[in-house]
């Protein structure tokens, strides 16, 4: 099978499996519920990720500074 045929099959599969295609095949209710309740999912994950990254960054910063000062005190 040549590359063009594989590409066509992959694109066709992606289109058929996409949520928009699903909603047009009788899944409109599920998508509407998702649209209503899962609004801002990305924003929520980014918020939690930022908070965790900042706290972990602070821990690493304290640990590095502690290590540096402990080393300097031992010398």
């Amino acid at each position, binding site marked *: 099978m040549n590359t063009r045929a594989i590409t066509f099959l992959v694109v066709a599969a992606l289109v058929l499996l996409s949520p928009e295609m699903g909603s047009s095949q009788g899944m409109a209710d599920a998508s509407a519920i998702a649209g209503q309740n899962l609004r*801002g999912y990305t*924003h*929520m994950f980014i*918020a939690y990720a930022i*908070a965790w990254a900042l706290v972990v960054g602070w821990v690493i910063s304290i640990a590095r*500074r502690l290590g540096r000062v402990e080393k300097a005190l031992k010398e």
Partner: protein
Amino acid sequence: MSSKIRWTGAVLGVLGIATTLVLLWMVFFWVPTERTMGVVQRIFYIHVPAAWVAFMAFGIVAICSAVYLWLKDERLDMAAVSAAEGGMLFTTIVLLTGPLWGRVAWGTWWTWEPRLTLTLLLWFIYLGYFLVRASTDNPQRGKRFAAVVGIVGALDIPLIHLSVVWFRSLHPAPVVMKPEGPSLDPAMLATLFVGLGASTLVFFSFFLFRYGLERMTQALAHREMAAQAAPRPEGAAS
């Protein structure tokens, strides 16, 4: 660092991590989804605890700074600078998570309404705390100036809390700390309290380690000053 500080910090840290894991389970698997805002409302369980810890940290800065100016005890200044660093971190979390929530709930990342503006002002005041501290050649003078900034900065905290009551604001009014009691769903309230507990434990754990670091840094600075002041042996290279 003394073993007492290290152990207390480690115990609080382990408790903080355990409580945080419980919080994450509650946030993602247990608490009901808010009807109007949907999933994005779950930012509330990290946004509000971060604000609580930030205000508590700046309260510690103000109290320690005031007593430092009175007693001139270096340990109070060390506690103040340690709390200020944590306060800055948690205020940054508040200022970054708020717009992510606001983008979905209000349709905008930022608006110059009183609570948001005063919170940003608080962040800049404590940025000024560190800048003032580092800006003088005389460390004692820097510490005194920073202590004054720390005290004045804390005056912004009640303004932030009351701004939504005093002014017409886009930011929602308090749902927990109000005269007629909390108006939250019990499950949401429980999740919020677990969040407050987790963030407080995490803050105090890192605060202790930061305080230990400050003590060691001061000890190192005193040792270097003593070494510089000590008379050099005769014949030593200059």
